[in-house]
């Protein structure tokens, strides 16, 4: 059952607490987090009439990393994009159901999408630095979008430095903050995007296959960063790569054809999946 899931402990320096194998369904239930951050209830999202995710109800705990895995086209990204209301930016899209973040219903009346997105950062598959902006202004871009935070100049510099530190990029760019962000390598650009998302101090950060276009070394840096982020923010990461999910996440959700099949502590999901479909997927029988 475990042949295909090699977490390869020797290759990684990230310390992991290996939870004992979950013995039963009851043990799993007790693992449900006490401090929920994101709660989706009966969430469905559509492109035209075709549902991309169907009736997903899940709880994402605070200050933890939750991974979403599943085969291509299963709705992983759509689910992620419902959490910061990006799904509705596409043409002919619709969302049913509720999403609550730290107690507020983000699809509630009078809640604006832009306000939600200021509190929920997002990083995409390909690095997306703004090509006309310098490294500094890229990181500060989110601050300038927020009308409430007309901050003093020195304050912005401080926030930019802090965000770059947290993204592990400060040492590499501190002498060239005014250069174009396009002069950075792909991996640096992606960490710049993470810094940009962190600068506005979001409560939640969504990562949509953040390492899909990066080389192994850059991937490792981003993974270490994701691992450290849990101390301060709630992270939801979509990934194609099951080893990555195993390395960085505390809990893993398995999605298949738009349905949430299983959500469990990562170790339990990979070592003792409840659902035969989860088992089939993680042992590499499809997907």
């Amino acid at each position, binding site marked *: 059952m475990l042949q295909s899931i090699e977490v390869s402990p020797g290759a990684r320096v990230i310390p992991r607490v290996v939870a004992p194998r979950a013995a039963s369904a009851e043990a799993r239930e007790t693992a449900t987090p006490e401090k929920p951050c994101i709660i989706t209830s009966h969430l469905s999202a559509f492109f035209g009439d075709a549902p991309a995710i169907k009736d997903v109800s899940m709880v994402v705990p605070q200050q933890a990393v939750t991974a979403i895995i599943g085969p291509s086209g299963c709705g992983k990204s759509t689910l992620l994009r419902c959490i910061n209301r990006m799904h509705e930016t596409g043409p002919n899209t619709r969302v049913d159901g509720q999403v609550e973040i730290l107690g507020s219903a983000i699809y509630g009346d009078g809640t604006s999408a832009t306000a939600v997105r200021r509190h929920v950062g997002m990083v995409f598959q390909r690095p997306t630095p703004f*090509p006309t902006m310098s490294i500094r202004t890229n990181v500060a871009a989110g601050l300038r*979008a927020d009308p409430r935070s007309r901050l003093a100049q020195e304050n912005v510099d401080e926030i930019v430095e802090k965000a770059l530190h947290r993204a592990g990029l400060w040492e590499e760019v501190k002498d060239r903050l005014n250069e174009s962000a396009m002069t950075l390598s792909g991996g640096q650009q992606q960490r710049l995007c993470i810094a940009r998302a962190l600068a506005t101090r979001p409560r939640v950060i969504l990562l949509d296959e953040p390492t899909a276009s990066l080389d192994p070394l850059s991937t490792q840096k981003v993974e270490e960063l994701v691992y450290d982020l849990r101390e301060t923010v709630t992270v939801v990461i979509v990934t194609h790569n099951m080893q990555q999910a195993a390395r960085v996440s505390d809990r893993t959700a398995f999605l298949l054809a738009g349905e949430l099949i299983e959500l469990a502590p990562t170790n339990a999901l990979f070592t003792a999946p409840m659902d035969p479909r989860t088992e089939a997927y993680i042992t590499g029988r499809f997907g």
Partner: protein
Amino acid sequence: MKTRLARHWISGSMIGLTYLAAVLATLPLLLILAHLIRKGAASLSLSFFTHMPGPVGETGGGMANAIVGTLILISIACAIGLPIGIGAGIYLSEKRSMPLAQSVRFLSDVLNGLPSIVMGIFAWTLLVRPVGHFSALAGGGALGAMMIPLVTRTTEEMLRVVPTSLREAALALGYPRWRTSLSVVVRTALAGIATGALVAVARIAGETAPLLFTALGNQFWSTSLREPIAALPLQIFAYAISAYDEWHAQAWAGALVLISIVLVISLAARVVTRSKFGAPVD
């Protein structure tokens, strides 16, 4: 079946033909430039830029009024054509599949193909006849109307090249939609939009037909927008069909100045495109 030698021969001659076509394509420009310099450079002096047209038989006159007039006409055309053209281009790229956008796109292509003399008559009907006299404003209006479809289409093309991922990145940061469009999408495409605008300016700078019934031309110094105004193409036209050799020489010099203005604008367009934070890399 063709032999290897035959294939080789056909390939060689086809490549030769494309070379020939490439040379022939640039030949007219080179011939025109050479001819203009040969005929016009002699009459070109400082006084050509600073003096008014002289009476027949007197040497040393210039086209100061026509040069200034052309610059004023271009400015009016830009004031009309750029905001409308760029605005329409942004609309077309933001709402690319709306039925209205599709008809705007089609009509703008039709407008682009409209003969410039028709544009002149249109401007005359709209801007000259109601007020009863020719004016710089009417001339600039005709040129501006010609710029609109050019600028609209290049703006749309340039905005379309900006990857959707950048737009999404801005939205995900909490940018409102209008801000995403302006400070990310338009800003990223700005170099391209500026290039398109300059190409449009270069294109209308030498137009004569739309000015015939609108700006009319003026032998005297005038910078009033409500009066007929001199313009290089009109002055060249008037001098070229005259009977005097001095005026012919002046017409050549005027043509040389006009083509130089267009060349400078085109070069400026190239420099703008290569600016530091230029086109997006993706």
